[in-house]
């Protein structure tokens, strides 16, 4: 992986700052980890000093390429894997010490659905409910029916799990997570195996749950699938949490890409003016297209100065006598940030 170390360091520091509440206010976060680390017996460090902050009520998109440590982190959150170092608080209580008290309020889908293949969907839910000492057996049937209906499995409830399609299995996994009201849902790759319609339904479900006040942590290696529903985002890469914070902040803080096309005669003036405005990486592209030359720049803001608004840049160029044939400012999408940080694919943000 070719994660640019410099970019990582500068990105993580300012972005995570506003999301960190004052020390000690553990109860304010639905999920909070400190220095969470997992080193497997093979010596491989799967998760490296991760400080996760998932505020209550957030829909937290937990993103990262396959193998970046998302699932191991989630397993540590839920007490399945013991951390080598660091701590986990779920809904204000330390894990795994208080698992018995906390986990009934947490619904989880971990690394794909898994059920007894020779039992029906309904019987599988009944089994999970029977394991839960804190649910009322008298309401078990009604609750499992409601959960099955909610994920659209009502008609297939009595089919054996073995006969389910991949999408139906995924839905049953979601139904299990919704078997009782939850304060927190941890959904690991919930859209795996779903067709576009199913993916839309999961997004809709997540939004609905979040509107009802449930905190949702949803992981995916496909950012586009969940980007629309997230209020917060954390990006994992190589076991580290590279970036986290409110979704809007993450892209707003990234450098924008400024593109100006002007007549060849005005190129020099445009370059001077763009530099004067404090834009970086001002580059003149070779060649004349449709009678214009393209100048690109970026409003890299690492020096802490206020970045000029797009309309101010355009006005300044015009005042400087630059005739604008075309003008465009593009803030990188979350996907571009993701790709830039994780080194997945080519570096499209530059």
């Amino acid at each position, binding site marked *: 992986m070719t994660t640019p170390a410099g970019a990582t360091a500068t990105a993580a520091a300012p972005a995570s700052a506003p999301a960190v509440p004052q020390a000690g206010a553990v109860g304010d976060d639905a999920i909070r980890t400190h220095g969470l680390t997992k080193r497997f017996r093979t010596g491989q460090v799967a998760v490296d000093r991760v400080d996760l902050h998932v505020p209550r009520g957030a829909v937290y998109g937990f993103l990262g390429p396959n193998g970046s440590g998302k699932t191991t982190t989630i397993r540590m959150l839920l007490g399945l894997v013991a951390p080598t170092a660091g701590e986990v608080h779920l809904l204000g209580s330390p894990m795994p010490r208080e698992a018995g008290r906390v986990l009934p309020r947490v619904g989880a889908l971990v690394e794909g659905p898994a059920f007894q293949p020779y039992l029906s969907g309904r019987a599988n839910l009944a089994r*999970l409910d029977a394991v839960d000492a*804190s649910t009322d057996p008298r309401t078990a049937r009604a609750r499992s029916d409601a959960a099955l209906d909610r994920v659209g499995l009502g008609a297939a409830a009595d089919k054996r799990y073995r006969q389910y399609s991949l999408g139906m299995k995924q839905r049953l996994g979601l139904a299990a997570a919704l078997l009782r009201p939850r304060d927190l849902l941890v959904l690991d790759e919930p859209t795996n195996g779903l067709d576009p319609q199913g993916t839309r339904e999961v997004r809709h479900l997540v939004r609905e749950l979040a509107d009802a006040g449930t905190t949702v942590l949803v992981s995916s290696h496909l950012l586009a699938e969940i980007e629309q529903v997230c209020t917060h985002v954390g990006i994992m890469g190589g076991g580290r949490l590279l970036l986290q914070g409110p979704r809007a902040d993450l892209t707003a803080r990234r450098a924008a890409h400024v593109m100006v096309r002007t007549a060849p005669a005005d190129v020099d003036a445009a370059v001077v003016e763009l530099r004067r405005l404090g834009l970086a990486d001002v580059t003149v592209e070779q060649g004349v297209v449709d009678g214009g030359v393209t100048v690109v720049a970026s409003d890299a803001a690492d020096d802490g100065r206020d970045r000029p608004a797009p309309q101010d840049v355009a006005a300044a160029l015009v005042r400087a006598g630059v005739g604008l044939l075309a003008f465009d400012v593009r803030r990188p999408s979350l996907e571009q940030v993701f790709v830039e940080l994780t080194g997945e694919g080519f570096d499209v943000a530059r």
Partner: protein
Amino acid sequence: MSPGETAAAEPRPVPAGRPDAAPDAPARYPGAAGRLVRSELRLVLRRRRNVVLLVGLAFVPLLLGVVLRLAQDAGLAGQGPPFVASVTGNGLFLVVASLFLCTPFLLPLTIGIASGDAIAGEASAGTLRYLLVVPVARGRLLAVKALGALTFAAAAVLAIAVVGLVAGAVLFGVGDLTLLSGDTVPLGDGVLRVAGVVAYVGLSMTGLVAVGLFFSTLTEVPVGAMAATVVVAVVSSVLDQLPQVAVIHPALLTHHWFDFAEMLRIVPSVDVLAQGLAVQAGWVVVFGTLAWARFTTADVTS
């Protein structure tokens, strides 16, 4: 207001800044443990593979009885291994003879399958992680799984015994029981003694269940745990044949398995029976503890 009054009358202020310290801590419903056990037993006893195993075991006394019945006029009556020779004279012995034939291999095999599958089966299906996040305490889940495996072992022994009793009664009739010494006891006493044999054989399998459960916590491959469990029983029988290691014989898992014959002596030796059960208890304690130590601390990555 005096200081003393304050301390006595006023309720202690609730410490601030501790959200949800108490309000929605979930209750334990009464009967939750029973619900969990019933659910597990249903799973074990309704599973098709397990039912097939039980039916297979039940065929042993049936086939044995039919063969002995067909051959009893062929001049071979009264021949064969111990107990088998007595079946044609008294149907009660079909129970004992069937257990005698199943104890060395068939019973350990079926019990190894069920107990080796207990945890490893859930791990390989991926359901273990979902059970644990429900949540259920790991020690509790292990205890319930042990109970399920023990119930299956009991069902296996009972399948042989019940079918043996019915088939023996139908094919040969039952009557007063002739003991190993040649003395005869009345039918009622005889039935009790055969019941004692069945109980002893059942209890003799508990050590193997514990071994299977331990192997089951080590792996995500159920077949591996099953095979390892059966291997332990086989190796134990082999060592039991070697006089060079006579010193360890009394502690071997299988060494006392055939002491059920004690029940058929005029005065069964309590010492012999107690020693056999004590050895099983030792294996249960050792491997039960190992299983617990492993399962309550292992990372669940399946």
